[in-house]
């Protein structure tokens, strides 16, 4: 089973684009990349979180059928910010059950037509009733984890700031990124609070965008393709919707479970991974992810991030070369697809200025909500 093509629209505030036009651009964009016709696609997996809540827009499967003019099976997948990773996971299962087939995975989200309050409310739909009643937002939930972590391991907001510093540097090398500006630590620390101790510049933005992949187990197509990357593992784990029901707050347990399963399945070790896209919806999330994926020891993330060893050209594996959610943008349904796509570009040496050298294996880590769903995908060239 191989990924043979990836396409993403520009991420950002795309005033002139609707959800439908984003989906259309991504579908026909990835077909062109793969040099395929729509007739060669056997099924589509579509990921989106908020169209139902924000714009009274559901039954997108049928809307996509109209866009492409075909009657093939189309499935819509929702798992909050992990929708894209889950859509990809289900696509791999579809291919496991069907030989000589080709599927298209497309993730899209339209978010910038609405006020921050409306979007915050729609995102909060993925939190528990108790959390919503406490007035907790997603930044608020991650802020509770961040404050817990900073207190337990004696770090400050400055340690968190290095995540955004690095990811904006990477974003400056990615022409499709929402933000392509570099930041200083001082500027990050001076940005206003969203939910203490997290600030605007600790947080991923509200973005529009779409991303698409072609996945196939058709040997003929794979042979004919200019680029191909193997899917070594795609593993899913879940956890309680309530943050307060978890054992501890300095880890995301579902990340630990999914990554253990994924490394076992892929039969490789952590040291073989040279590039990763991890779910940095907030600065603290990247630090927890690096620890829970097993790349760093618990509690050392705050120190390690300051060394910038995971920046392109650093001594460690490169993390979030796309700019991550922070700089590349976070159109919720598209994010998980884009993460896998970025690893595909890196492993096929198509990443341009942000190319990581000598990477044979890469990992994508996609989180829904405050850790209620996690998908870990491992790819190999």
């Amino acid at each position, binding site marked *: 089973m191989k990924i043979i093509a990836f396409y993403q629209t520009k991420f950002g505030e795309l005033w002139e684009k609707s959800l439908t036009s984003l989906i259309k651009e991504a579908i026909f964009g990835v077909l062109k990349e793969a040099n395929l016709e729509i007739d060669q696609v056997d099924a589509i997996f579509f990921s989106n979180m908020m169209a139902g809540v924000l714009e009274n827009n559901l039954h997108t499967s049928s809307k996509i059928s109209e866009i492409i003019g075909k009657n093939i099976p189309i499935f819509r997948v929702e798992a909050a910010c992990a929708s894209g990773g889950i859509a990809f996971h289900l696509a791999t299962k579809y291919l496991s059950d069907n030989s000589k087939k080709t599927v298209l995975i497309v993730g899209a989200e339209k978010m910038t037509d609405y006020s921050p*309050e409306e979007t*915050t*409310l729609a995102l909060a739909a993925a939190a528990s009733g108790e959390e919503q009643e406490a007035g907790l*937002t997603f930044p608020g939930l991650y802020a509770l984890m961040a404050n*817990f972590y900073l207190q337990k391991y004696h770090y400050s907001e400055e340690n968190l700031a290095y995540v955004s510093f690095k990811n904006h540097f990477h974003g400056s090398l990615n022409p499709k990124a929402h933000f392509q500006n570099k930041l200083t630590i001082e500027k990050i620390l001076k940005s206003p*609070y969203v*939910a203490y101790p997290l600030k605007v510049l600790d947080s991923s933005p509200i973005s529009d965008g779409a991303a698409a992949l072609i996945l196939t187990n058709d040997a003929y197509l794979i042979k004919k393709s200019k680029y191909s990357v193997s899917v070594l593992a795609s593993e899913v784990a879940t956890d309680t919707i309530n943050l307060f029901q978890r054992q501890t707050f300095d880890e995301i347990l579902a990340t630990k479970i999914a990554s253990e399963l994924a490394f076992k399945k892929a039969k490789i070790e952590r040291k073989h991974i040279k590039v990763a896209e991890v779910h940095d919806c907030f600065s603290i999330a990247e630090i927890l992810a690096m620890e829970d994926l097993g790349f760093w020891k618990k509690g050392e993330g705050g120190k390690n991030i300051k060394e910038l060893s995971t920046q392109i050209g650093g001594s460690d594996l490169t993390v979030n070369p796309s700019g991550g959610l922070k700089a590349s943008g976070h159109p919720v349904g598209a994010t998980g697809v884009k993460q896998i796509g970025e690893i595909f570009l890196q492993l096929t040496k198509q990443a341009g200025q942000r190319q990581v050298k000598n990477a044979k294996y890469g990992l994508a880590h996609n989180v829904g909500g405050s850790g209620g769903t996690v998908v870990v995908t491992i790819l190999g060239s």
Partner: protein
Amino acid sequence: MVSPVKIWRRQKEKREILGKEGKVISWTKIYIAPNDFKNMVPYPVVLVELEDKKKFVGQLVDYEEKNLKFGQKVKAVLRKTRNVGQEDVIPYGIKFKPI
């Protein structure tokens, strides 16, 4: 608007927590909030470990800045949770106050 039937269904869960004491194990202060909470910003939300070791979240009320600390002792109280329309049922829920 929160539907009255949802408010009614949640009452029985709240009764179990009401009046319990506990300590703050993490906290935040929300600056960007959904519409129903907008006029309360900035407001603190605390993650509390209750006396029976169960955990819960809620806003901290009747507080001073010095109460925003780890280990702060708190008690669960019943308060209005969100702003609703004039004709709607007023939702009450769990908040915490320092003791």
